[in-house]
């Protein structure tokens, strides 16, 4: 059962009024332009025990993503593909509004949207991660721990997952006498494209990229669009009870392509992939 969202972050009416006035003048309360994305910092390989990892800061939002590679059975209906599992957890250290316990619907949506962007872009060529067709495949877990919340977890978690995946080293498994053995060698992951997620929110009649917590508390609707290296759209998710006009959706999609390309350049430079 899904209930209407109860507001946990409270923004005073006066502050809301201030925000609307500022936005209508083309400037946000944190001095950003309406389509300006906060600075992105990425540190790779922060978790040595993981096969790949990234600590991403998007403004004050911070996410650590770590990859663990195992072998297992393929998913049903995908017998000739490696298994990719992406999860996200908003840790209670991350904000005063997080309750410890099983993930709520927002966190599950977050994990699924991040997963969808990466999966649908076919960033990883999963057909190359099969050991015994139909029986044993590589299982790649990408787990995101959100450690500080300041809005736009969708994009921050997505950048963390993509950076960790693109920079990971996959262990090489082999089949010997019907058993899986780890060879101790590593291989580059089969990367085909770099998906980039761009989230835009609507506050009143205005569209803002990369919302922070305060802006998210005032937003009417949210749209996350993921594009691939070719500039095609590969995944979308509209959220909240507000709505968008067709023209708004088209302009958000255009912006997701342009901003996406900028961030893709930045990610590629950091991760060193072609």
């Amino acid at each position, binding site marked *: 059962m899904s209930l209407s969202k109860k507001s946990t972050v409270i923004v005073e009416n006066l502050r809301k009024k201030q925000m609307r006035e500022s936005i209508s003048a083309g400037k946000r309360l944190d001095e950003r332009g309406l389509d300006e994305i906060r600075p992105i910092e990425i540190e790779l390989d*922060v*978790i*040595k*025990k*993981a096969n790949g*990892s990234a600590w991403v800061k998007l403004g*004050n939002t911070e996410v*650590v993503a*770590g*990859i*663990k590679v*195992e072998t297992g059975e393929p998913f049903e209906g995908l017998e000739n593909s490696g298994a990719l599992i992406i*999860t996200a*957890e908003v*840790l*209670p*250290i*991350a*904000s*005063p509004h997080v*309750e*410890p316990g*099983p993930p709520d619907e927002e966190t599950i949506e977050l994990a699924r949207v991040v997963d969808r962007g990466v999966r649908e872009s076919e960033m990883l060529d999963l057909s190359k991660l099969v050991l015994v067709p139909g029986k044993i495949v590589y299982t790649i*877990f990408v*787990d995101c*721990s959100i*450690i*500080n*919340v*300041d809005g736009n977890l969708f994009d921050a978690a997505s950048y963390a997952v993509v950076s960790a995946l693109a920079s990971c080293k996959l262990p090489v498994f082999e089949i010997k006498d019907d058993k899986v053995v780890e060879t101790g060698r590593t291989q580059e992951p089969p990367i085909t494209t770099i998906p980039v997620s761009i989230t835009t929110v609507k506050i009143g009649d205005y569209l803002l990229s990369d919302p922070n917590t305060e802006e998210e508390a005032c937003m009417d609707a949210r749209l996350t669009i993921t594009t691939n290296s070719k500039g095609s759209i590969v995944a979308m998710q509209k959220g909240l009870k507000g709505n968008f006009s067709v023209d708004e959706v088209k302009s958000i999609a255009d912006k997701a392509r342009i901003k996406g390309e900028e961030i893709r350049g930045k990610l590629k430079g950091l991760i060193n992939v072609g």
Partner: protein
Amino acid sequence: MVQSRSLIDESGRRSDGRIIDELREVKINVGIIKNADGSALIEFGKNKIIAAVYGPREVHPKHMALSDRCVVRCRYHMSPFSTDTRKSPAPSRRETEISKVIREALEPALILEDYPRAAIDIFIEVLQADGGSRCAGISAASVALADAGINMRDMVSACAAGKVDDKIVIDINDTEDKEGGADMPVAYMPNLKKITLLQLDGELNPAEFNTCLDEAIRGCLKVYEIQRSSLIEKYFGKEKGLKEE
């Protein structure tokens, strides 16, 4: 416990190159979680652990509140990528027990009567585990509590000692924990000279037990110095901190 290979070589060096009374490298970074009232990142060898404190704040659900003192809630949790094989994100029985003993190790240092009807939440997240994560978690949480400005009687510093190849060593690492003879984590209030956490698995004879306890406390005192200087560095800057030392 199987001792399959020698964990201390002829020159007295352990599997990671340390001598028997040497601590792994410890670094504490105070205030790294911007949303939290107090926080600390501890790197204890390869352990990488964040502790964050929220509170004193309102208790939810309200019926859990105590009229004469503060409620302390503690969660110790390991990220799925923190261990050699992936750990399910759902809390395990081990994590539940460790959460409890950590809370009980920290509570004696907190002046809970100062905050009636309130709650203090302590969250410990293990990003990378390397043996001794409960001790590192306690030491980080204690710094985070001080960073949050919670009234405290003393710091809580924690370190394990144990038996490896029949020798008593301090600060057991992952390999020594799995292959060694005994592991005894201790948490200690260094100024009040009181023990607040004590666990043991493995076998120690009475003489070994006494040495082990003394060595663990020596380890706690070393950790205490690092906790202290990390707080001085945050609040008074590096230079002032050095002058005071």
